[in-house]
């Protein structure tokens, strides 16, 4: 059975990472790329086989070996294949494979190609490892490795200072989430005594209610960090300084999905705690709204997509929160396809124009129709226009929400999905629509960059066909309820947004500048453009932490060390006082004895003339003395 060999998926990727890093300079630039692509192709084929066999048989597989022993407990390491993980494996390896092919051309002129492909391979390997892991500890290890890769790849162009600060921010912010998650894992371990998913699920019910809630919230904290939910979303826009394939692979299609994957993994636990799920739902929907709202006014071609990513992952988390697990995963699949597609397309645009600001772009429609049409499919899917994949997953989420019966959530969801088409068609129109004043770049991209985009467009376009079979295959069933009216209504809302965007940005029938003159809109615009100033306040906080650290180090130098030095100085003073006492008193006695001996010996030394004659003189004197003494004492 092919599932037994699932552990092989990350292995070639790690090996390629090792080769690329160790043989860095000795490796030819091209060879490194082909090696990595070959490895990821292998993982892709294996993952596809596993996916197909899982889809056909619906079976699970769990293999494990003893890892290490901790006190009484034996910790095992293993891999778990079930529909959720096989779907994730497919998504990860598919997107990786396409992005690797794309990168072959995109990174052609870069001198550090071996490093790039090595780190990318490490990322893909860790991500597949994360998906395969059968316990929390192993998952956390890969979880952090994924974070490390994200750090390394955002900072890939090391001489840029934005790269430095962006990568730092990404790592530290996700680290906060990771720490929360680690706390959760450890809390769970101390109660249950195992890291394994299955053991945990079996005995989680024995914990007290409060402990359950705390543990689940801590785990959700990990997901918040990795999946860029409020309030830890600030790192994603800054992460866009990395190379575009990296943005496509890590910050849109795979890594940020890890949080959603984690939540889907612990879904058996979540369903027992309504408090936690509702918290998750509110976090998700607020993030979705925030992302969509912030995406409305951005200018950077990749930042819009970044905020859009935040927004859509918010949808997924929200879906988890309303227990629409399969809806969430279906949206995850769709989003991976269309968001990777959009990023790769943005990469093409950036290479060809050399610009990042979409207000200075235009006329892209003219350069070959393949990329614009593929991008259009991606945008339509993102916007949730029927009958594309995005529409289906959105409808599934809506159905799940309706089952929960919370109308606040429903209305918020509809509001968020109203904003999606507006920002994405603003993006599309400003780049692709005809505009005489703007120039198109003079470079053109080769087939290696176009092919992945077309492939992704195909997937995004056809994904919707599988929605019902997907629903059945997933372990959680989601009943299509009788909410047809609501479904039609929400679709109409989305279409309204779509029309509005077309009217404003493509046909330019509504003048956007006139709207901006309104004070209310101006304020809204400002807030949107600055993403509610969350990032700025964090930066200020960071500066405070830094100035605190400077203060602390000064404190250490001045006071802690100062106390010691003061003791030292005091000791010196005492010692100098006591030294004088010592010199005169104690030392005086000792020295006095020594000096007197020295003096007398210097006298005695004078006797030692070396002349036998003188010695005889002393013998004489001695004899005389003895005789005198005898005389006196003898009477």
């Amino acid at each position: 059975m092919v599932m037994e060999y699932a552990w092989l998926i990350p292995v070639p990727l790690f090996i390629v990472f090792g080769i690329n890093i160790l043989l860095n300079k000795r490796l030819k630039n091209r060879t490194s790329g082909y090696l990595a692509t070959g490895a990821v192709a292998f993982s892709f084929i294996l993952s596809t086989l596993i996916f197909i066999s899982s889809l056909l048989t619906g079976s699970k597989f769990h293999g494990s070996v003893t890892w290490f022993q901790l006190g009484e407990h034996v910790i095992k390491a293993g891999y778990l294949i079930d529909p959720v993980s096989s779907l994730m494996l497919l998504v990860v390896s598919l997107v990786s494979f396409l992005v690797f092919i794309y990168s072959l051309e995109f990174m052609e002129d870069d001198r550090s190609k071996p490093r790039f492909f090595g780190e990318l391979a490490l990322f893909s390997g860790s991500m597949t490892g994360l998906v395969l892991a059968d316990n929390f500890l192993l998952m956390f290890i890969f979880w952090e490795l994924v974070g490390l890769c994200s750090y390394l790849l955002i900072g890939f162009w090391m001489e840029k200072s934005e790269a430095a600060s962006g990568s730092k921010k990404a790592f530290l912010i996700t680290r906060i989430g990771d720490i929360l998650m680690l706390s959760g894992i450890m809390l769970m371990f101390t109660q249950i005594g195992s890291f394994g998913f299955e053991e945990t699920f079996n005995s989680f019910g024995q914990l007290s209610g409060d402990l359950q809630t705390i543990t689940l919230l801590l785990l959700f904290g990990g997901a918040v960090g990795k999946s860029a939910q409020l309030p830890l979303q600030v790192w994603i826009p800054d992460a866009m300084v990395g190379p575009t394939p990296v943005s496509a692979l890590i910050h849109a299609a795979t890594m940020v999905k890890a949080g959603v994957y984690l939540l889907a993994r612990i879904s058996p636990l979540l369903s027992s705690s309504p408090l936690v799920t509702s918290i998750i739902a509110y976090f998700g929907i607020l993030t979705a709204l925030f992302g969509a709202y912030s995406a409305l006014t951005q200018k950077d071609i990749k930042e819009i997509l970044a905020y859009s990513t935040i927004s859509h992952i918010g949808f997924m988390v929200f879906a988890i929160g309303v227990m629409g697990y399969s809806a969430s995963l279906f949206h995850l699949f769709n989003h991976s396809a269309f968001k990777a597609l959009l990023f790769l397309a943005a990469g093409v645009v950036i290479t060809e124009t050399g610009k990042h600001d979409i207000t200075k772009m235009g006329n892209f429609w003219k350069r070959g129709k393949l990329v614009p049409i593929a991008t259009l499919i991606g945008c339509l899917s993102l916007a949730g226009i029927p009958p594309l994949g995005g529409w289906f997953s959105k409808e599934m989420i809506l159905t799940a929400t309706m089952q929960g019966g919370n109308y606040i959530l429903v209305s918020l969801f509809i509001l968020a999905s109203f904003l999606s088409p507006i920002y994405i068609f603003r993006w599309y129109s400003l780049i692709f629509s005809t505009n005489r004043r703007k120039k198109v770049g003079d470079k053109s991209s080769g087939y290696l960059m176009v092919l992945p985009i077309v492939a992704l467009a195909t997937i995004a376009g056809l994904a919707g066909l599988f929605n019902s079979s997907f629903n059945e295959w997933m372990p959680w069933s989601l009943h299509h309820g009788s909410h047809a009216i609501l479904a039609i209504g929400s679709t109409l809302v989305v279409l309204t947004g779509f029309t509005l965007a077309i009217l404003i940005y493509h046909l330019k029938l509504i003048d956007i500048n006139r709207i901006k003159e309104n004070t209310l809109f101006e304020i809204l615009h400002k807030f949107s453009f600055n993403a509610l100033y969350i990032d700025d306040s964090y930066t200020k906080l960071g500066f405070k932490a830094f100035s605190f650290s400077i203060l602390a180090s000064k404190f250490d130098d001045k006071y802690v060390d100062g106390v010691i030095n003061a003791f030292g100085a005091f000791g010196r003073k005492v010692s100098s006082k006591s030294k004088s006492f010592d010199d005169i008193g104690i030392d005086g006695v000792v020295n006095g004895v020594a000096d007197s001996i020295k003096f007398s010996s210097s006298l005695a030394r004078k006797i030692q003339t070396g002349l036998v004659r003188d010695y005889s003189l002393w013998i004489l004197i001695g004899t005389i003395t003895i005789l005198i003494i005898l005389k006196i004492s003898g009477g």
Partner: protein
Amino acid sequence: MNQLLSLLILIPLVGGVITYLVGRFNKEATKYSALSISIITGILFLLTLTKFNIKIGKYQLVEEYSWLNSIGSQILLGIDGLSATLVGLTILLTIVAIGMSWKKIKKKKKSYYPLLLLLEAGLIGVFLSLDFIIFFIFWEITLIPMFFIIAIWGGERRLYASIKFFIYTHLSSLFLLISIIAIYLHSPIQTFSIPVLTEITQTFSPQLQLMIFIGVFIGFAVKMPIVPFHTWLPDAHVEAPTPGSVMLAGVLLKMGGYVLIRVGYMMLPSAIDLAMPILAIISIVTMFYAGFVAMGQEDLKSLIAYSSVGHMGIVLFGVASMTVYGIAGGIYQMISHGLISALLFSICGMIKKDVGTRKISKLSGLAKETPTLTGILVFGSFAGLGLPSLSGFIAELTVFIGAFSTWEIYTILAIISLIVTASYFIWMLQRTIFGESQLNSKEINWKIEITSLIPLIILIIIFGVYPDLLFDYINPFVKLITSI
């Protein structure tokens, strides 16, 4: 062949003399002599490990020679899980330190290498001796070579740093001595044997144990070091030569941890029981404080030195939790920190030689200048901040799991300190490796040095991926001492 342990001490000791004699004829030959002697010690240690039964937590391969019978002291050597790991670390890091000195130490070679071997002998002696008198003798012996290594081969303020180091650590060991004497005086049997006294001290009243523990605490708190007894460490590290820093951070700090477990935990459990909350607070303060101070450092080396302080705080935290996990994790952390800090200090020394400065603000663009060193620096930093799959993570995980069952709030605080740790490492990386370079590096051939670092890198990864390699030694020991 039951003299393995005494041979482990004697070979570096005699080897040091031989190396000195060799140095009188040929200065260049000293390093070869020192290297071969340290490798022979390593081989002997491996031989010892084959004789060592990992299933038993007790002292093994015990050697006994009569010595100061009049006061009940004798030469008693033994090895258990704790000392085996620490002796292994000592031997490995000595080899690394010799590798790091290979080209850098240019003056007075003929006295440098013997001092290094004397240091090794002293450290092995500390970890192997089971009698307080010889333990204390070895404990003090280690100060002497370290003092000279800092004072002769150190940086600009080496005299200040070496004297501060010496006075500080010497004073603290006096407190330890007072405690040892107190134990001796209160024991009904006239003996200095640690195994015998361990059983006797258990019966002491908690108040008495606490009094004794205060002396022991000062002894290890300075050595480890724990805030606020840490200020000697950055000075000593900044001024010490690279191999000196490697030995200082890698092994000398572990003596504190060793005493904490061997004397503090094993002999005075009721005292630790009483002092547990205070110890926890102290260690958490240490972690946070060291983290924030490290963030504010300008000098790369003192940043790493402060990170050592933070890492050793985790050891105290683990042991103070008094659980199997906490103590096992503490020991794991000692080994892991030994490897990581040795790596970081070595890299730091090489960077300083390469680009001529250690100031973080001047180091930007390092990646362009020295890609290999940068790679190792990044690796070391991530190992330092506890990246999973590297050894530091397993240690921290185990410590925190152990602590969770004792305290919950404290542990969460301690875990939060990991964010501080991560932030100062990452922020250091941001300022050093990224950006445009304004440096002009010399082309230095680092083959020997990097080769000597490879074992460290491999071990950090192996201990992170397959922890049983170490836990096999640690677990039986910890189980034994916690079952008392």
